[in-house]
């Protein structure tokens, strides 16, 4: 009995440091933010005033809808492109596939600010792209930077390489014989993808989806530099409310709301993983 008690103590001792770190670094700030958010910015009273204003003030409501829109659209496009790229890299044999395979993750090593300025130089109205098009006689260039599409572009730039890397490793784990036996059984390319590749890499797709979603919804640098002045994504709006207007409580309410959005995503993610475990056990 004393042996098992000892072991229990040891286990506890091993867990306590990481739990303490988790508590101090994650749980406490969340609790603090929740508490701050419940103090009305205007009246100083305890209540849901900040949240009510957040969802009723037209500007903030527009920001929330805009953020969700940008995030969902970017996530879906990034995921589709990454999937297509990963499939191409998994099954492509040519020199193109080889070179893409060597180069596609480079954006991950470019710091965000630099990449954002790069995008601005490339795609702004007098940027390289516009000048290139001008050379071949096209003098109308769509407005990309400082708008929704610029933000979309930045989100794709930042998220596709990582998602591709995740999905590539998932696809690499799909044995050749599974693919070959599926084709042998008569599966067309589409059937191959939807009945085999997708189900076998679906778990990783969720991981990628979760990471892309959380990365985009909380992003600041790119939307700050490349996005429109209004509506703003929540990250930029929150920074403005916090440091320019110094409305700590309003900013906390926004932070808690973003945290809840991510939690929903995390819930689905964990549930999917759990289901998978059930199936395997």
């Amino acid at each position: 009995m004393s042996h098992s008690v000892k072991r229990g103590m040891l286990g506890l001792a091993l867990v306590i440091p990481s739990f303490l770190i988790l508590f101090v670094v994650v749980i406490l700030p969340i609790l603090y933010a929740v508490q701050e958010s419940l103090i009305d910015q205007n009246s100083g009273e305890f209540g849901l005033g900040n949240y009510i204003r957040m969802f009723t003030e037209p500007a903030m409501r527009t920001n929330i809808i805009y953020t969700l829109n940008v995030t969902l659209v970017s996530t879906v496009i990034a995921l589709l492109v990454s999937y297509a790229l990963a499939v191409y890299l998994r099954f492509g044999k040519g020199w193109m596939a080889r070179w893409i395979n060597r180069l596609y993750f480079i954006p991950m090593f470019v710091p965000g600010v630099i990449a954002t300025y790069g995008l601005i130089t490339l795609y702004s109205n007098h940027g390289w792209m516009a000048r290139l098009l001008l050379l071949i006689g096209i003098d109308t260039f769509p407005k990309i930077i400082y708008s929704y599409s610029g933000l979309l572009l930045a989100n794709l730039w930042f998220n596709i390489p990582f998602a591709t890397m995740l999905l590539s490793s998932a696809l690499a784990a799909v044995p050749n014989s599974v693919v070959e036996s599926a084709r042998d059984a008569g599966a067309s390319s589409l059937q191959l993808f939807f009945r085999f590749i997708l189900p076998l890499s679906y778990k990783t797709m969720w991981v990628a989806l979760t990471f892309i979603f959380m990365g985009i919804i909380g992003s600041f640098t790119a939307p700050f530099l490349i996005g429109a002045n209004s509506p703003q994504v929540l990250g930029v709006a929150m920074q403005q409310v916090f440091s320019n207007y110094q409305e700590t409580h309003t900013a906390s309410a926004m932070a808690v709301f973003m945290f809840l959005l991510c939690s929903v995503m995390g819930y689905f993610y964990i549930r999917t993983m759990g289901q998978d475990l059930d199936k395997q056990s």
Partner: protein
Amino acid sequence: MIVISIALLAGCSGKSGSEAASASSTGTTEISLYTGGSLNVKELWETLIPEFEKANPTIKVKLVYLPSGTGGQSAVDRLLAAKQSGQQSVDVDLYEGSLDDMTRGNSQGIWAKLDSSAIPNLSNVDSNALKQANDMAVPYRASSVVLAYDSSRVSTPPKTADELYDWIRQHPGRFAYNDPATGGSGSSFVNTAIYNFLPADAMNSSDPSMAQKWDKGFNLLKELGPYMYQKGVYPKKNQGTLDLLASGEVDMIPAWSDMALEQLNKQLLPSTVKLAQIDPPFTGGPSYLLMPEMSTKKEAAEKLLNYVLTPEAQTIIVNKMYGYPGIKWDLMPKELQNQFASVSSGYRQFNSGDLQKEINQRWQSEVAGQ
């Protein structure tokens, strides 16, 4: 407070911290100068100090440079704390800061009165500016927001604010100012647009009721919105609009004189870019030097202050910082006067405390979100 933040964003203001500077017994006195802000402030002092030490061999200056955002505010806090705990001396002999630092410290009496008998060159400084600072802070350099335009596309720049607004209406998409919350040049455009409708002294009022009188100004800004770059894109940061001007996407922007001149000098802006001040002028702000009351080496510090206010030192400052001199323009060398003629006509100071926050907030919802 608004003035500092503007000046900080322009990258030419300084704040400071505190540390020990020991008096040596070898006949030389070592004084500590606390400064901060952008790197160009550090470079400025690294040029000024050797010149000063050459002329005053018995004084050594220790430069304590705290880059912006690394605890500049706490230096004043430390001085305040030293005062409250009854310490007899501090290790800060000179401090580069803002009018706001002066105000904060003044109530506790941490700043020494500056006296033209000890610092003869104080007479070079505009006496009104000194009075505004309770004779406790010397505005030793300044910068202002001006109009920067590409002369290859704009032959006759607007002379007045109204001409500027007309020019904007006549040239849709060719003007840009930055999001006022992200930089002083855009902020200055917004503030002047609002306060040009109000009496001149309104700019120095922090009375919340002033906000009732902003409607005309905001209506003007809203009306100008569609004529802005890309029908209402306001880039982030002072540099955002400078980049647009450099790449030729717009022809005219409000910009900090020091930033624009420095970038012209480094050829980051095309040489066709020219600067002009309009009437009534945009806002700007000085950077101040202050001397703690508890400094034990006031005499040496006063010598340095006196040196900084000489036309020679001011020439270095103007050339290095592309800013305004702290002393009267007519004391400056003629060629420098000519070189800076376009921007030297002056600036107004916007000093209305927390109202700036409200302006930005209202701008975000009414102008950006229109």
